[in-house]
């Protein structure tokens, strides 16, 4: 009897975890973009950026980051150059003028959202 109750609890935990995973993907995606753009104020290549992000506790997969960089370049906010001097050719990305403007705006939007959220959460706490 108690064995099956444990199974049910496990199932519930898995279910809630999967819901959290599912809903947090969108949340993380927006944050990831701002952070990546922020670190591209200096020229970086794929792996160097990945390391920097990891050092700053930003949770992004390599398989997500590399395509993201290409996409941002296609959108016109990053400039890319191939560096063929080292043993391996490396593609360096850096924020261009357009990208700087975009990043400023995104950060502004993010700050506003942050303040709004704090008010809401604080408001909730005050209401309790």
């Amino acid at each position, binding site marked *: 009897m108690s064995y099956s109750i444990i199974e049910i609890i496990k199932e519930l935990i898995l279910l809630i975890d999967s819901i959290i995973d599912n809903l947090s993907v969108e949340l993380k995606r927006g944050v990831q973009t701002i952070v990546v753009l922020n670190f591209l104020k200096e020229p970086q290549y794929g*792996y160097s950026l990945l390391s920097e992000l990891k050092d700053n506790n930003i949770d992004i*997969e*390599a398989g997500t980051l*590399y*395509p993201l960089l*290409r996409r941002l370049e296609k959108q016109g906010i990053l400039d890319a150059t191939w560096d063929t001097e080292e043993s391996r*050719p*490396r*593609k360096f990305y850096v924020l261009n003028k357009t990208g700087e403007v975009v990043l400023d705006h995104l950060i502004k939007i993010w700050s506003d959202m942050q303040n709004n959220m704090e008010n809401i959460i604080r408001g909730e706490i005050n209401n309790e």
Partner: protein
Amino acid sequence: MNNNNYILRYVYEVTKRLPANEREDVRKELETNIYDMLSDDPTKSEIEAVLKSLGKPSEIAKKYQKDGRYLISPKYYDSYLTSLKNAMIILAVIGFISGIFTAFFVEPRTDIVDVIGLVFEKGLGGIIEGIIYALVIVTVIYVIIERVNQNKEVEVNKEWSIDDLSELPALSGTYISKASVTFDIIFTTLFSTAFIFFIYNHQKYLGWVKDVNNKLTLTTPLFTNSIKYFIIPLVLLTIFEIFNRLMLLKDGVKTVKSYILIGIEIGLALLTFLIMISLKTVFNNDFTTKLELTFGSNGVKVFDYAVAFVQVGLIIGIIVTIIYTIIKVVKANEFNKK
């Protein structure tokens, strides 16, 4: 050195899924990125770990081409489904009707079993042909639309007007399924054409049947050839019936107009039958003579009563149809006034 093979194969697996103009660039970049993530002389398990952390090649390839790897993208999908449904229904009906005509007029047969078999075969074949044509044509058109617009941000028309909103159904709950209306069209056509066929060949099928040399033959027809004059109004009626049902198909609900039209349709059909059996010249005198010879004057009386019975039934039917239609229209008007 053999281990490098895995990296090259992984990158190939990814790039082969990408458009040709992107492959070389992505290959170079991804290869470098992978080597950067490994030590100078990586073991097979190291390589495996890194490649697994990147994810399945098909998945990462998808991320490299976020926008549009659709045959028909979500933008157009709803419109595609609607067009497809409409086209399939219309072409199925057209295919069915043309199949029926082929059965009757291209290869004339007289054996009734043959005819029914032919009608089903040609009719069903026509339906299937129509559906397949619709499926292929609509899909190809939408795939072309998708391809042509792939690199453009096409604004599917977002402006709408409240005047374009659909009409409400006549009464609550009078939504009709398109499938049932399509079946209705098929059976109506089938029934009407069979009826017209019997009228046209009445001397073979409607009348006194006798056993002649162990074979059932029709010796005396029930009707005279003047019944053939009714074929024209019957054909017109059939066309009217099909038209009404196509209207139902288009509206998707029973509107006040559809109630009235169907009322007229049924009324006219009953009226046609009524006139058909009421004309003196319709019934074959030879038949009534045969009746009298076989059953005596009572035979003829029974026959007359039977005809009168049907006449009265038809008249009642017409009256009921009129009353029913009026009730439905009045109810619908009350419902819509709310």
